[in-house]
C-alpha cells in the first residue's frame, strides 16, 4: 500500500442545531482502497460522506484530497468551479436512489455520455461508442442504449448510474447505500459487479452502508459510527470477526444468519 493517502480527514465536527452529526471524526483513504462507513440510521454516515465529498461544510476540521498532480487540496477551501470540476471528472457520486442522479427524460446513452460532454467531448460517434462500452461493462444490453431510464428496472437503473459515474474514469467514488432498496438477488449481482469494476479500474471508494454483509463483501477497511462518533475502525474482517466496541458487537450480533 502506498504511504500517501488519497483523501484524509482530520477532526471533522458538524452540528445540525442541537444535534451533533459528526464529532471529531478522522478518516484516511488510500488509492484503490474501499472504505466502508457502517452504522445505524442517524449515526452520521451520510453526513460524513457529504462532508468528505465537499457537499457539506463542516463546523470544524479539514478534508485533504491529493489531486492528479499529487498536490494536496483542502476540499472545503477549493473554489466552487474547481470543486464542481472535480465532481465531474476525478470523483463520482453514486446515490442510493438512482433517479436523483440520472436524467429520466434522457436516453441511457445520453445519461452515460453527459459527463464526457461536460468535459468537452464533442464527437457524437465516440461518445456513443464509449456509452455502449460502459453499458456492456455494467451488463446492460447495448440494444437499450436509446431507451429512456424509466423503462429500466431498479437494478438496471443502479447499474446505469454506475456506468454514468465511471465513464470519466474517476479515481474516487462516493457511494451512498448503492444496494439499498433492491431485492436480494439483484443486490448480489450488483455487489459482484461493483467489486469487479472497482478492482479492475483501481478506484478508491468511500461506501456508506448499514448492511454489514455489503461492507464485508466490498470493503478493505471499515469505520463503525454511532451518534456522530467513529467507535471502531480497522480491517473489515478483523472488525467484523472480532468486534471490540460494545456497539459493534451489537451490530454484528444482530445480523441474521442465513
Amino acid at each position: 500500500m502506498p504511504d500517501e493517502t488519497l483523501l484524509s480527514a482530520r477532526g471533522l465536527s458538524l452540528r445540525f442545531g442541537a444535534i451533533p452529526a459528526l464529532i471529531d471524526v478522522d478518516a484516511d483513504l488510500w488509492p484503490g482502497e474501499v472504505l466502508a462507513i457502517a452504522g445505524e440510521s442517524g449515526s452520521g454516515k451520510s453526513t460524513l460522506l457529504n462532508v468528505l465529498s465537499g457537499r457539506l461544510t463542516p463546523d470544524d476540521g479539514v478534508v485533504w484530497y491529493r489531486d492528479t498532480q499529487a498536490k494536496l487540496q483542502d476540499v472545503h477551501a477549493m473554489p466552487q468551479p474547481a470543486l464542481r470540476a472535480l465532481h465531474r471528472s476525478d470523483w463520482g457520486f453514486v446515490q442510493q436512489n438512482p433517479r436523483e442522479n440520472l436524467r429520466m427524460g434522457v436516453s441511457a446513452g445520453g445519461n452515460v455520455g453527459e459527463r464526457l460532454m461536460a468535459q468537452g467531448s464533442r464527437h457524437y460517434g465516440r461518445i456513443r461508442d464509449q456509452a455502449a462500452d460502459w453499458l456492456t461493462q455494467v451488463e446492460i444490453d447495448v440494444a437499450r442504449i436509446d431507451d429512456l431510464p424509466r423503462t429500466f428496472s431498479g437494478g438496471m437503473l443502479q447499474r446505469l448510474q454506475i456506468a454514468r459515474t465511471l465513464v470519466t474514469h474517476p479515481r474516487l467514488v462516493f457511494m451512498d447505500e448503492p444496494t439499498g432498496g433492491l431485492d436480494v438477488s439483484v443486490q448480489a449481482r450488483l455487489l459482484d459487479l461493483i467489486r469487479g469494476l472497482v478492482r479492475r479500474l483501481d478506484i478508491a471508494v468511500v461506501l456508506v452502508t448499514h448492511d454489514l454483509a455489503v461492507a464485508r463483501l466490498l470493503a478493505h477497511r471499515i469505520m463503525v459510527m454511532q451518534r456522530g462518533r467513529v467507535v471502531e475502525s480497522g480491517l473489515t474482517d478483523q472488525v467484523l470477526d472480532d468486534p471490540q466496541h460494545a456497539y459493534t458487537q451489537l451490530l454484528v450480533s444482530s445480523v441474521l444468519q442465513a
Partner: protein
Amino acid sequence: MTRIEGYNFAYLDEQTKRMIRRALLKAVAIPGHQIPFGSREMPLPYGWGTGGIQVTAAVLGQQDVLKVIDQGADDTTNAVSIRRFFARTAGVRTTTHTSEATIIQTRHRIPEHPLTENQIIVYQVPQPEPLSKLESSRVETTRMHGLAEYGLMHVKLYEDITRYGHVAISYDYPVMVAGRYLMAPSPIPAFDNPKMHQMPALQLFGAGREKRLYAVPPYTDVRSLDFDDHPFRATRAPHACGLCAATDSYLDEIVTDDRGGRMFVCSDTDHCETRRARGHVGAQALAAE
C-alpha cells in the same frame, strides 16, 4: 409623419433611456452575457416586442432611419405598429429597405441583405435563457453560465441526433458567443445563425418580460453548437421563391387556396421586392398578381 405632443422623444423618459444604455454598455462589454434591466410597461403586450422596442427607444437618434420587420416582413401588424409608434413618438424617418436603415428592429429574422458597420440590429427576445427548457431554475442556470458548464446543452443535441438523426432545433438554435457564453439568438431560424458570426453590425437583444438585455458587438465569433461528426447545417425549404426565383433566401410556405395549392416565397419581403424590381421573376409571379 409629424411627432405627437406630450411625449418625450421616442416615448421613454431620458432617465429610463440612460438606465437601458448603461445595461447595453455592460452587455456589449460582456458579449452574450444576460444583463438584468428595469423593463418598463410599454403600450403593447408582452410577447409583441416590449424588450426590442425599449432597446430601440434607448438607442434611437433624430437622424436615424428605422426599419421594423416581423418574420422578415415589413407589412405585418407587429412591424407596422412598431414602425408607426416610432414615427409618431420620435418623428424619425422609417424605411422598408434594409440598406437604407440605420436601426433595424426585428422579430424572428435577420435580413438577407448583409448588414454593415453603420447599422444596429435589435432583436425581440421572448426567452433570453438558452438553458430554460433544460433547467428551469434561474439560480442554477446563472451558476452554469458563471462556470461555463454547458454539457447539458450538448446532451440535448445528443438526444436529438439519437432520436431524429440530426439536431431537431429549427429556430432559437443555441450559439456560443466569443467562445464563452451560451446565448439564445431569439427565435430566428437556424438558417440565420451563420449571419450572426462576425457580423459588422452591432447586435442588441431585448427581453421585456424577462427583463434581460444582451449584445453581440461587431465582428464577434458566434458559433452554433454542434458535434465534430455532426456539424451544424443551415437548412431551408428546397425550393426557389415563387415570386423572385431566389434559391438562397429563407422561404415561407403560403397556402394559396383550399385545394392544396401552395407556394414558397421569400420571408424577407424587402429582399424579394428588390429582386423583382431588378427583373427576377419566379415561376408563380404571374399567377400571384
